[in-house]
């Protein structure tokens, strides 16, 4: 067994899981509190990457790029909530799917107009570009940073949701929106904040991954579907559920891509295993979601009080 490979795969899984969590936590709150399906949440992921890349190109500072980029995506998210999403909270889910599908087209094209069709590479400062060597383990610094940043955000979000007044309102909103309204809370402002905050977290995920993959048009459209799988498996409206489900899916996806062929090889001829493994590993998360939906539709960790 190659322990180095296993550890680096575990790190990749952890990294994917945290990125998924950044996307899914906002998605699950928007879904749970406003009952709004936002397919265009992946666009915030893309916009975050482009904002950050542009600011880095002008200022040369990655940190500045992330901070200003976050503010930028927060504003974009707020605008989308204000002008579009707000009008549709009580509408049919089908309308949400259509409008946000339209938004994806709009954002993808706007990025095409503003930044061109080819991707945008984001250079990393030298400090982050190196490697950390532990014994005979070589760990890329930047990947460690992504994991660290992801865990930090998760911790902050946990504190925000469980210890502050805003968090209390968010939790209350996820369990029973009508009751929160009835108690005289300015629900419109709460919705605006949650939407924009969710957008900013998705943007952060895009900024973090872009230095590795580079920013490109439509980069959010595949991962957003996986983020939806996370939301469903974790339970709609549950940040805790999103965290566990994201970690689980990140690890399952990464590990199955590298080890499933070996596992299948134990039960069937190697050449069949090598054909079946990639398909099966790509499908695994969807199979998992279908199973959860069929047997436990409320998700694995539904928010308290939600039926």
């Amino acid at each position, binding site marked *: 067994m190659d322990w180095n490979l296993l550890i680096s795969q575990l790190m990749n899984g952890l990294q994917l899981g945290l990125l998924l969590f950044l996307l899914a936590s906002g998605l699950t709150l928007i*879904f749970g509190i406003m009952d709004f*399906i936002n*397919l265009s949440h992946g666009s915030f992921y893309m916009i975050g990457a482009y904002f950050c890349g542009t600011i880095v190109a002008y200022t040369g500072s990655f940190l500045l790029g992330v901070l200003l980029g976050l503010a930028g995506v927060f504003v974009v998210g707020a605008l989308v909530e204000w002008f*579009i999403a707000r*009008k*549709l909270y009580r*509408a049919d*889910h*089908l*309308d949400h*799917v*259509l*409008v946000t*599908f*339209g*938004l*994806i*087209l*709009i954002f*993808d*094209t*706007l990025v*095409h*107009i503003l930044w061109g069709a080819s991707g945008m590479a984001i250079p990393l400062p030298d400090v982050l570009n190196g490697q950390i060597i532990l014994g005979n383990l070589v760990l890329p610094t930047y990947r460690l940073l992504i994991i660290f940043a992801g865990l930090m955000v998760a911790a902050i979000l946990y504190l925000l949701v469980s210890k502050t007044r805003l968090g209390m309102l968010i939790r209350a909103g996820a369990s029973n929106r009508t009751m929160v309204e009835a108690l005289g809370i300015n629900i419109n402002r709460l919705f605006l904040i949650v939407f924009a905050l969710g957008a900013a977290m998705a943007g952060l995920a895009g900024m973090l991954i872009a230095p590795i993959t580079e920013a490109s048009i439509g980069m959010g*459209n595949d991962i957003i*579907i996986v983020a*939806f*799988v996370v939301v*469903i498996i974790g339970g*709609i409206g549950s940040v805790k559920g999103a965290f566990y489900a994201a970690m689980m899916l990140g690890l399952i996806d990464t590990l199955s891509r590298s080890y499933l062929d070996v596992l299948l090889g134990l039960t069937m001829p190697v050449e069949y295993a090598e*054909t079946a493994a*990639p*398909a099966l590993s*790509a*499908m695994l998360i*969807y*199979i998992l*979601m*279908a199973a959860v*939906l*069929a047997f436990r*539709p409320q998700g694995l960790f539904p928010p308290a009080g939600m039926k």
Partner: protein
Amino acid sequence: MNWLPTTVAARVYALMLLILALAPFIFEWIDQPFYLDLLSRALILGIAVVSLNLILGFGGMVSLGHAAYIGIGAYSVGIASYYDFYNGWLHIALALSVSAGFALLTGAISLRTRGVYFIMITMAFSQMVYFTFLSLEEYGADDGLVIYARSEFPEIISMDSSTSLYYWIFALLLASLFFVYRLVYSRFGRVIVGSRFNEPRMQALGFDTYRYRLTCYVISAMMCSLAGMLLGNFTGFISPDMIGWARSGELIFMVIIGGAATIFGPLVGTIMFVVLEEALSAITVYWHLIFGMLLVALVLFGKGGIHGWLSRLDRKGAEHE
């Protein structure tokens, strides 16, 4: 002349069918054979959209995975031809049986869920189909599969010339419109529509709505696979790209532009979509922007799609008289 259609919508649809029936001659006359290709593609998608409308519009089952059945139909032609089986009946049988089997299996699971969960689970199943074809190296994986010959229907009609293929498509489209019309106004269809509005009430009346809805889902999937079979024949090429979730999103879009839960609306929506796509993409590379804005505006302001708009014209006219 009381045999003439009386409402604005009915007149528009009658005129449209007449134009569609004469289209090959019109295009030959104005010497624009390319338009026939465009229209053929629109009508093929029309069959798929009409089938989606059956479950989405009439049945209230919002499936974000209907493109999977186009894929199954097209790959039935592609894979059979790959092994030198060109018999069209075989292709049809393959498309129908595989799509029915898949729809029965996945529908049985999906229909246990409601609302958002149904949207997501249908999407998940279609992604499974997508990844299956994406990983089948033997059949081209993500490069797609070229279909060198069209399905053969010995001694009946050839699909070789683009005009005869067009009439094949047109005939199948008419058949599916008629079929959906008859189905929706049958007892079966009333149960389906009734379950959309109030399922507990239908159950209280003694109907096993789950079975009805599942049957409807399977029928719709089989119709859609026929569209896929035609699409494979028409384009001579099939790739997993035709199955992705964004394609299913486009199909929903077409239903809504035209007007869900109407017989002709979805067909009009599809033709509008394909023509707009072609016209806009000829003007600017940024046509998706206009498309996206149209979609947002449609949901925010345009209730009922084109059919709804045409019907409102009637009501206005009636108020004047």
